[in-house]
């Protein structure tokens, strides 16, 4: 039962940093339970787009609509918007002075006003599901990269966001640890989570994505189902970009 209103809709989004136009009119619609994967070279605007959606950056033009609400309207309370979006960063960004459990329960307790026992119980269930129950009392720096990134995903999930944004979440991990994080994301998809993710993992994109968008120079150059975009790209730029992955044996 997909709702007629998309969860997320970006319309002609423009973002500039000084003279540099990073996004030049990006359009993107994400339906409920859909997993959309953004691919493209570094500097193509993938991360900037995700940061704009989470209002970490103010767009210079265009509109971003979340569940029918224009969130780029300056009258909108940013904090209320962010409560509905979960974000996972490339470098985890866990709080090093708090245990994993405290990291995961911070938003439920201090933003969503859950009691500590309730928040911790929910967090422990969540951590158990992703295989980190025994690490709950550890500090982030004592975990492996893969464990840290899974903890960061748990932190983003703890308040049941409508939309999950994943910004190259496996780029800082070595190949051995990438698998455990991707397995977790696959799980989330099967549970119906709505996800927008930027990644360089083309194999994974093909398996999990409902739709793949190729970003080039701040515009969506090509988009469609993964079989089409990844295997039969129309645009020469897309082919050129994907060729590097085929050479590298990663597709």
């Amino acid at each position, binding site marked *: 039962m997909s709702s007629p209103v998309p969860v997320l809709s970006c319309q*002609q989004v423009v973002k500039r*940093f000084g*003279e540099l136009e990073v996004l030049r009119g990006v359009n993107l619609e994400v339906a409920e339970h859909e997993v959309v994967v953004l691919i493209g070279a570094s500097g193509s605007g993938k991360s900037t787009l995700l*940061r704009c959606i989470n*209002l*970490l*950056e*103010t767009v*210079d*033009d*265009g*509109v971003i609509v979340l569940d029918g609400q224009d969130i*780029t*309207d*300056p*009258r909108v309370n*940013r904090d209320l918007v962010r409560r509905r979006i979960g974000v996972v960063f490339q470098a985890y960004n866990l709080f090093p002075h708090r245990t994993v459990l405290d990291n995961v329960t911070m938003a439920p307790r201090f933003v969503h006003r859950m009691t500590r026992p309730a928040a911790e119980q929910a967090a422990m269930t969540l951590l158990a599901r992703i295989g980190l129950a025994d690490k709950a009392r550890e500090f982030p720096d004592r975990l492996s990269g893969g464990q840290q990134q899974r903890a960061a995903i748990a932190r983003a999930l703890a308040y049941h966001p409508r939309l999950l944004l994943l910004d190259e979440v496996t780029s800082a991990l070595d190949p051995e640890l990438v698998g455990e994080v991707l397995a977790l994301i696959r799980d989330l998809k099967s549970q119906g989570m709505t996800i927008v993710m930027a990644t360089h993992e083309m194999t994974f994109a093909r398996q999990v994505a409902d739709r793949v968008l190729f970003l080039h120079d701040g515009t969506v150059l090509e988009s469609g189902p993964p079989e089409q975009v990844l295997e039969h790209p129309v645009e020469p730029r897309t082919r050129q970009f994907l060729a590097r992955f085929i050479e590298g044996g990663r597709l």
Partner: protein
Amino acid sequence: MSQPAVSAIERDRQAYRRAQARRSTAIAAISTVVFAGALFLAVTRSPGWPRVRQQFFNLEVAGDSLPRILEGLWLNIRVLVVAEVLILIVGLAVAVTRTLRGPIFVPLRALAAGYTDLFRGIPLIILLYLIGFGVPGLRLQGVPTSVVVLGTTAMVLTYSAYVAEVFRAGIDSVHPSQRAAARSLGLTYRQSMRLVVLPQAVRRVAPPLLNDFVALQKDVGLISVLGAVDAVRAAQIESAESFNFTPYVVAGLLFVALAIPTARAADWTAARLERRERAAGVL
């Protein structure tokens, strides 16, 4: 580059943000005026105000005492500059000594730790008396007897202990991975300290260092207890001659005027650091 064409909705947003900015400015201006007005009325309507104004804010006395106080302030400034340079050197040396590893440095480390414990603990005024009156009492050959030199020495001893701790906090705040990266390049301990750790540490503690500098700016006035004719002592003399407290107020205002540029410099360095090293974004 001319302003790029924008959609109607973005023009709306920009107009709204401008309106918000104007509103904030207006609120700030009104609340400042109301607050300042209320404070002014509260003071000037108080029953004792005419007498207080006569005793503390007498323009005539202020004008008469100003040249002498300025002369005293010049001494404060010279002491301040010399002391600050010495403090930074001694403080950094003590801080680096405290970070030295290895059994051979145990006595040095203990000495540095003892130094900070002692001189941070001892009240500045007591140290001023001990050094200002005790050291000349020894009647040693070649030891300076000028109260200015002795007062500056006491100032340097106390403040170096504080500044050493600030530096040490800065050194400790540099992530171990930076040291690991530096040593992995083959840099020696000293080189990695000088080229990698200290530059980051010093930059990071610039704001608290400037804070200590502001504190020192007014504490240099304490050398007056030894008899040096600085701004505070000059004010005291003027006050005794005119039976009026205005010279103290004049000296106080001059110290404030001295501190304001430093405070702004501290804010500015902190802001610049923030801009340079942190990623942008709306937080």
